[in-house]
């Protein structure tokens, strides 16, 4: 009943094209990309809006936004805390889409990926969500707890609606399983470089290189590598091995470092975080 459906069979609406364009541009520039992760609505709606709108100039090539969730099972302490801060400040899925819509008024090029867990989307209603997602101007989805075995839930409807469904491949995804994981993937492939949760440990570059080469043998899609990448040097290294490096917890930690005891943003938070993103981007921008 939930057998993966071949992508050839999906004749959906065309997607926004921003992801493809951005990776093609990176290739033309001959450099790796920087994907930055922050949680939507963290630490509050206004501060988040300033962070989001500042990311492209700071050097983010692709923006990944976490959909706040009460029980983020694949995330480490930094992103768990970010989710809870956002929820406490009133964030939700609808407002997350509103943020993207606002962002699109001033930026029509930077791809925006929403990353999260299935329950908020399931509760929102898959069909309605996909319509609102398209309307907001977002480009792709990464849903941590939807493996290919559950493709009928959201992956297939998303592809049919012209929404990129970006799959996670991991060190445990062996060659036998990889084709099933890649089959209904679009936009790019996100390689989780470690066994573990976000923001905890880092993989060695040799292991990552080996893994990326393995993925490249199975797919023509760009490969972004994430988990445990936390400095300009690491971004530089990954940028030479893969098509893009994803940094999440390290940025989220910079947000946390500029909060007062009641989790309110201190003056200077946005500048500090965006300068850190600039520093990270220097790893792939020479």
């Amino acid at each position, binding site marked *: 009943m939930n057998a993966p459906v071949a992508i050839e069979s999906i004749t959906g609406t065309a997607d926004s094209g921003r992801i493809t364009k951005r990776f093609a541009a990176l290739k033309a520039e001959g450099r790796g990309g920087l994907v930055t992760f922050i949680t939507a609505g963290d630490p509050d709606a206004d501060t988040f809006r300033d962070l989001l709108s500042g990311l492209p100039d700071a050097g983010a090539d692709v923006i990944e936004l976490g959909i706040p*969730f009460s029980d983020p099972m694949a995330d480490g302490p930094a992103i768990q805390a970010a989710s809870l801060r956002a929820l406490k400040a009133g964030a939700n899925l609808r407002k997350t889409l509103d943020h993207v819509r606002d962002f699109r008024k001033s930026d029509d090029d930077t791809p925006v990926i929403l990353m999260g867990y299935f*329950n908020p989307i399931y509760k929102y209603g898959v069909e309605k969500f996909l319509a609102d997602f398209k309307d907001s101007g977002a480009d792709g989805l990464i849903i941590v707890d939807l493996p290919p075995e559950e493709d009928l839930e959201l992956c297939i409807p998303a592809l049919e609606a012209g929404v990129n469904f970006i799959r996670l491949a991991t060190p445990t995804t062996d060659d036998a399983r990889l084709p099933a994981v890649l089959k209904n993937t679009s936009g790019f492939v996100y390689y989780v470089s470690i066994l573990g949760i976000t923001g905890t440990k880092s993989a060695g570059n040799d292991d990552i290189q080996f893994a990326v080469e393995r993925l490249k043998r199975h797919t023509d899609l760009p490969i972004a590598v994430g988990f445990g990448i936390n400095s300009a040097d690491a971004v530089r290294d990954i940028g030479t091995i893969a098509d893009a490096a994803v940094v999440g917890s390290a940025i989220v930690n910079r947000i946390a470092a500029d909060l007062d005891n009641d989790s309110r943003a201190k003056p200077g938070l946005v500048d500090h975080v965006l300068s850190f993103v600039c520093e990270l981007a220097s790893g792939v921008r020479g």
Partner: protein
Amino acid sequence: MEPVNTYRSGPDETGHFGIFGGRFVAETLMPLILAVEEAYETAKSDPAFEAKLTYLFKHYVGRPSPLYFAPRLTEHFDGAKIYFKRDELNHTGAHKINNCLGQILLAKRMGKTRIIAETGAGQHGVATATVCALFDLPCVVYMGATDIERQKPNVFRMKLLGAEIVPVTSGTATLKDAMNDALRDWVANVETTFYIIGTAAGPHPYPAMVRDFQSIIGIEAKDQMMEAEGCLPDTLVACIGGGSNAIGLFHPFLDDSSVEMHGVEAAGKGVTTSKHAASLTGGSPGVLHGNRTYLLQNDDGQILDAHSISAGLDYPGIGPEHSWLYESGRVKYVSATDDEALTAFQLCCRKEGIIPALEPAHALAHVSRIAPKLPKDHIICMNMCGRGDKDIFTVADALGEVI
């Protein structure tokens, strides 16, 4: 919903009971989940596996647990005849050990060298620590900091048995957060570690596997009732947190249409308040901890805190098979409040000389509502799934007594 020929054939090959169940886990875990399923399918048809489990059930757990006619409660309610399936007499004091033995045998078969578990009340943690001692495997138990505080005797028991207890402070620091952190551990240690899930929930094959290991309760009860009364019981009653003791009692009877089944959720301070743990009565379908099932959640799909005086029922979800049995109408789901459970707890102590756990005290609270209205030849079989030694501090506190 379409009528079905059998209620016992689920889950389907993709791990679904109707729309419930499934495998909603991160890709890192998915290959292992498939390996667990394969290992379990092989073990199920291996007579040596069954023989080992049967031996341990008999000589280590003390099975079969008695089916006991409760004369004074029957007289007190002056209605239906009341029987208790005495799983509180098992080694470690609850039904949890049935499942832990099955899963650790599977872990050994798979060559895993480290065990993790989550626990709420601590009964599953104690049972896991126990089987880890028996099989000489290191054991790490995730337990909410709030629960560690209210279940101190079980925390110390686990330590005596050699387990490492990791306090969970994330989220609300209760059972759901302990399960989150156990899953996080598993993702990081997927190659060496087996996760012994304590209830009939989680990603497929856990709900089916835990049910199968717990079904010994219902299988025995059926035989014992035939011996005692020469017929099947009319009504089965069991409490429900995740629902493993209930599914263990119910499942072997599901196709016996004369047998009514009542699952009793924890209504806490009342299902109309925000402080309860009744996922079916007060929740809606959602996806958490690897399966689709009824959950306590808000309109945005954020999981809400559960509340119950019983730490073992204090979970915002329920096993997916119960969600399916609820929607199909085969099992009736009701609830009992903290106060009703406390009253039943005390009644059971005085009338039968049995100190029940607060979890089955919820089941007894429901029995006390229905038994007086039923005829004298009506037979109720209630699962006394745990003993109350662990709860005496909680109960004393609730009754305003200092011990």
